[in-house]
C-alpha cells in the first residue's frame, strides 16, 4: 500500500531475536512524519520491541532502520534518544518530586531545569504548577503518566513513542491523556507512534495504524482499515479484540 507522506521512521527487512527466540521478522514499512500512528495487535506481537528499536534501546539483528532518511546507526545513542523520545508503559519514576523527574533529562546533560519552564510544561500537560513540588508517590496513575510524557517532552523530541500509556487509566484520565497527545501532535508537529490495545482509541486518535501479529506486520494503512480489514487474521483480531 502506498501513502503520500514523508517517513519519520522507515524499516527495511528488520529482524530481531534474543537467544534464538525470534521476536520480529521482516519488518518493512514507514511511520509518517507529523502524524499519529497507532500500533495494535495481540500481546507478544513484538510492538514494544519495535518501539525500543526506534529509540535505540535495542538494535536489530538484521535489516536497517532510518530516522528521517538517516540510518539509525549513524546517530550517537544519546543524540538518537533525545530526538526519538519514549514514554514507557510502567512510567518509571525516580524517587522525589515531580520537579526532580522533569529536571532529569537536563540533569543528565549537566544542565539545570528552570522552574518557570517546568511550571509551563506542567500546564501544557494539564497538571497545574502546584504539582511541581508534589511527591511522585502522591500521584494517581493518570498523573504519573502525564508526568512521564512531560518528562519525555523536556528533550523536545521530534518523534514521540508511547507504549500503552493509557492501559491502566480510568475513563476520565484516559480522555485527558488522549487530548494531550493530540495537542502535542497538532501544536508541535511531533510524530507520534502509539501502542494501544484500545481499538476504538486507535480509530479515533490515530491517522494511521499498523496491525502486528506474531512478530510481523499483518496490515498497515489509514486507521479506518480497522473497520474493514483485508487480512483474515486481522479481521479475527479486530472482531475479537475491539473494546
Amino acid at each position, binding site marked *: 500500500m502506498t501513502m503520500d507522506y514523508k517517513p519519520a521512521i522507515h524499516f527495511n527487512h528488520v529482524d530481531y531475536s534474543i*537467544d534464538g527466540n525470534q521476536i520480529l521478522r521482516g519488518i518493512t514499512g514507514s511511520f509518517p512524519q507529523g502524524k499519529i500512528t497507532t500500533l495494535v495487535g495481540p500481546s507478544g506481537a513484538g510492538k514494544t520491541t519495535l518501539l525500543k528499536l526506534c529509540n*535505540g534501546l*535495542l538494535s536489530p539483528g538484521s535489516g536497517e532502520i532510518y530516522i528521517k532518511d538517516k540510518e539509525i546507526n549513524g546517530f550517537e*545513542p*544519546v543524540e538518537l534518544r533525545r530526538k526519538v*523520545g519514549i514514554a514507557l508503559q510502567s512510567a518509571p519514576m525516580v524517587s522525589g518530586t515531580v520537579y526532580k523527574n522533569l529536571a532529569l533529562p537536563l540533569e543528565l546533560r549537566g544542565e539545570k531545569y528552570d522552574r518557570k519552564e517546568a511550571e509551563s510544561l506542567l500546564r501544557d500537560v494539564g497538571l497545574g504548577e502546584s504539582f511541581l513540588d508534589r511527591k511522585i508517590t502522591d500521584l494517581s496513575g493518570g498523573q504519573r503518566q502525564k508526568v512521564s510524557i512531560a518528562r519525555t517532552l523536556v528533550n523536545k523530541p521530534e518523534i514521540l513513542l508511547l507504549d500503552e500509556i493509557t492501559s491502566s487509566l480510568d475513563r476520565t484520565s484516559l480522555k485527558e491523556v488522549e487530548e494531550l497527545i493530540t495537542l502535542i501532535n497538532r501544536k508541535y508537529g511531533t510524530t507520534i507512534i502509539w501502542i494501544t490495545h484500545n481499538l476504538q482509541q486507535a480509530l479515533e486518535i490515530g491517522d494511521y495504524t499498523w496491525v502486528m501479529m506474531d512478530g510481523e506486520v499483518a496490515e498497515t494503512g489509514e486507521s479506518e482499515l480497522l473497520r474493514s480489514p483485508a487480512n483474515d487474521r486481522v479481521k479475527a483480531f479486530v472482531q475479537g479484540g475491539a473494546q
Partner: protein
Amino acid sequence: MTYLTLSITLIFVVIPLVLSKTLNLGLERDTIIATVRSIIQLLLVGFILKFVFDSESLLYIFLMVTLMIVAATHNARNKGASIKGITWKVAVTLIFVEVLTQGILIGLDITPPTAQYIISISGMVIGNSMVLSILFLNRFTAEVESHQDETELVLSLGGTPKQAIHNQLINSIKASMIPTIESQKTVGLVQLPGMMSGQIIAGADPIQAVQFQLLIMFLLLTTAAVTSVMLGFLSYPTLFNQRMQLIQKS
C-alpha cells in the same frame, strides 16, 4: 598447648553432636566432616607456615599469597556469574587491594617485611576482600535485576550507562560496606576481635594487642572501600554494549 590438651577440646564437638542426635537435626555428618577438615586444613597450614617462616624465602611468601588470591577468587566469582569476565575482575581487585595495603604497611615501615607479618596480614586482607566481593556481587546483581525499568528510563532519556546504573551501583557499594563499619562501631563493647584475643592469650601486652588490632581494623576499612568501589566500576560496563544498550537476557 599440648596435643593431649588439644584432643580434650574435642568435647566441644561432642556437645553439638549429642544435641543434633537428640533433636534429630541431622547435622552429625556435616559436623564430623567440618571437624575433620578443619583439623587437617589448619594443621597443614600450620606446618606450611612454620616452613615458610623459617625459610624467609620471598618465593614462598609470593606463592602463599598467590594461593590465597586464587582460592578467594574462586570462591567469590560464583556470586557474580552473570557478569562477563567476573573471574579476572575479582582477581584484579584482590591483587590491587593486596599490593596497596602491603605497599603502605611496608613502604611506611609500619610492619616489617617478614613472612610472619606479610602472610598473616595478607590472609586477613584477602579474606575480608573476598567476603566484601561476595556481598557486593550479591547485592549488585539483585539491584540491576530489580531496577531494570529505572536503568532503561535513564538510557531512554539520553543518559549514559554510568548515569543509568549510578543508583544501583552506589546502593550496592554502601550495602556491602555497612557490615565492616557497623562491626567496628561495637568492637570492644560487644565482642573482642579474635586476633587481639589470640595475642592476649599468647601472653602479649594488651595495649600492644589493641594497637595492632586498631591497625588491622583501619586496614580492613580501606580493604572494604577499595574492594567494593573497584569491583563496582570494573563490573558495570559489562552490563552494556557499545550502543549504550542494556544487554538483554531472555
